[in-house]
């Protein structure tokens, strides 16, 4: 189609084309028009509030006044607080538990369900269905699965005369219990991101591969996976960002307990802001969370980029 549209033939047209392609890459102010609508909201509703939050973190304040300037005092208080250090550790632990699981399971599901059949469509709906539930219900379900004596798990273990692990009240298991519930709840997004990436892989490549009699494994390993590498990075980064912000599941399943073993940073922030009314402390903890997410996401981004360049 593109060729047919080229007027005439000859080298002059080709030169014109080259010039046009060069223009395509020239920095032009009017191109900003495409990104400026979003940037307007980004700056007014994210960047400005972020700096406002940083300013707030330098104050001793509650919701009903501007408070007084205390410098970095809120940050010092955080680093003196054993529990804050514990919740930072908890949050990293939770991210390590959930992010790889979500990415790998999501990818496997997408590979298995990327077909145009009715069965596959129904199964995709099933795997997506848990995502539509609100966190209140998700946690209620998993609490009744995990809870002692009456829970589903306890019942099943009971059939074999065994005692079920206490996922909600054993400090070494609490975070794992929350992670299981989270993976169950959140698997829909990575699966769908991988599915839409798989849809972008040009079919010609597969056709060529099948002509070459490439084995299924070779096709998967050498064609499918490399072409969705970018999406894999995207999924990892998005999940890092999301799972660092764990809140509802921990609040509703264990209240962060026992002994703060399952308390994530956001729950700490919530308690500081809304229960202790210590807005400055909450703001300071939010900024630290921001920095941690940024480091984790950037690290992931650069690691994957370097690998990509080598490969």
């Amino acid at each position, binding site marked *: 189609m593109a060729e047919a549209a080229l007027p005439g033939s000859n080298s002059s047209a080709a030169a014109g084309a080259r010039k046009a392609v060069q223009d395509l890459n020239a920095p032009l102010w009017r191109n900003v028009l495409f990104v400026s609508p979003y940037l307007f909201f980004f700056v007014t509703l994210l960047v400005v509030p972020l700096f406002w939050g940083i300013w707030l973190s330098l104050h001793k304040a509650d919701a*009903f006044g501007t408070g007084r300037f205390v410098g970095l005092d809120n940050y010092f208080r955080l680093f003196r607080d054993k529990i804050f250090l514990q919740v930072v550790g908890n949050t990293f632990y939770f991210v390590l538990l959930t992010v790889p699981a979500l990415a790998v399971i999501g990818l496997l599901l997408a590979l298995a369900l990327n077909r145009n059949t009715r069965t596959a469509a129904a199964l995709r709906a099933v795997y997506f269905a848990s995502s539509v539930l609100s966190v209140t219900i998700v946690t209620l379900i998993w609490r009744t699965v995990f809870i002692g004596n009456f829970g589903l798990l306890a019942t099943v273990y009971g059939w074999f005369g065994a005692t079920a692990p206490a996922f*909600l009240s054993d400090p070494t298991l609490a975070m794992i219990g929350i992670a299981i519930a989270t993976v169950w709840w959140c698997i829909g997004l990575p699966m769908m991101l991988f599915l839409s990436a798989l849809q972008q892989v040009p079919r010609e490549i597969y056709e060529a591969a099948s002509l070459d009699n490439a084995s299924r494994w070779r096709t998967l390993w050498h064609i499918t996976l490399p072409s969705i590498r970018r999406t894999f990075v995207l999924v990892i980064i998005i999940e890092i960002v999301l799972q660092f912000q764990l809140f509802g599941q921990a609040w509703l399943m264990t209240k962060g307990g026992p002994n703060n073993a399952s308390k994530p940073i956001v729950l700490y922030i919530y308690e500081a802001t809304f*229960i202790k009314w210590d807005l400055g402390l909450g703001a300071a903890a939010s900024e630290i969370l921001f920095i941690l997410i940024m480091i984790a996401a950037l690290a992931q981004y650069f690691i994957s980029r370097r690998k990509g360049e080598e490969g």
Partner: protein
Amino acid sequence: MTLTLRKYMLAAASVLAFAATTPALAATELTVQRFFGACDAEFGTNTDASKAVGECGIITSLINKFNADNPDVHVSVTTVEWPGYDQLTAQFAAGDPPDVVTVHHSVLGDYQSRGLLMPLDDLLNSVGISPSDFTDASLSGVTKDGQIYGLPIDNWTMLFHINMDLFKKAELVNADGTPKLPTSVNELMAQAKQFKEKTGKPYFVQNLANEVALYTRNLYTYLFQQDSDFFADPKQVKLNTPEAKKVLEMYKAIYDNDYTTKDMDYAASINAFLAGEGGVHLNGTWVIGDYNASSETAGTALNAGGYAVYPYPQLFPGKKAQYADGHSWAVSQKDRTPEEAAAIGKFLKFFNDNDFEWSRTGHLPAVKAVLESENFKALPHRDTIAAVATLGTPLPSTVQRQFAIQDIIGQEMNAAITGQKQIDAALADMESRINELLANI
């Protein structure tokens, strides 16, 4: 002709406009915000509170009745998810709070200390309500800095809910048929041991998972009973004390000897008690109605031998007391017309007058006369728990952030009782965390 038509249309429009605005012109609008849920299907149009059951049903019916009785006032109700303080704080911060709002006695101090609530002494006086009408527990709950900041509607507390069938099997029944309750820590341990040996079940049903409130209320109660003045200074708690240690040691012994259910959350503990899985359920005033109904249903665990409910037994030789909190109507601080103020007065007076209906929820009445009335005494089990109105003791009214303190105490007690932390370490951390919190208000 067009002119006539226009005239008609104008006339019609003005009639419509008049009809639409008339109620607004005549009635004073009052915004009321409350928790307790919604139950429009059952009680949405009911105005007879005596026919309603449960917190939601009774409060909905009472407000319906108020609106029906007072055409000059229109109460518009916004229901919030319990306890609604995130939302309320946001409303105050945005300068747009409701006129009247449900607030726990224990939380009044937080808003009052920032000047967000209106002192009610004059308003209550103007509608003929005197502070001496209230029970001691209620009055002390709503009084801050010598003034009243909420109309108390009840007191509630934790109670011993007892499965009499299991108590009989455990031979823990007096000659008159009442349950034998302990009078000291040693007696409690002995009875719990006996209970377990005879019935094979734990003495206590407790919700120890996903929970902070139960631990905290237990601690407060048994500290009061030892005359421990742990909040002598409302800005500085003293919890690393021998008294507190005694309480934690007692609960740890109960836990270690399997005298209690473990790993249960709130809903599971109710299920367990109703299924007869233990002798004593530590739960609040609000479940009396449900448990009583269960005991009257053939075939249930509570029907087998009966259900009884008592205040916490006095285990220590100090003041007879147990921790109590309560609900109140607080009024936001705002510039109001005399009509608006009068409407609020009417609303509060109405709830004060109907305190008996509210006490049918299981909560104890805030009005002395109701507590002493025959109507109240005739309600199931109220004879045994009425004592709470005098036993009930809140924290000192000037202690702020009581919900946050409850979280800290609950977390540390849980760690100590389940053996994740030494009792001394837990008490030390409890104390320093609360003091850090209070120092930063």
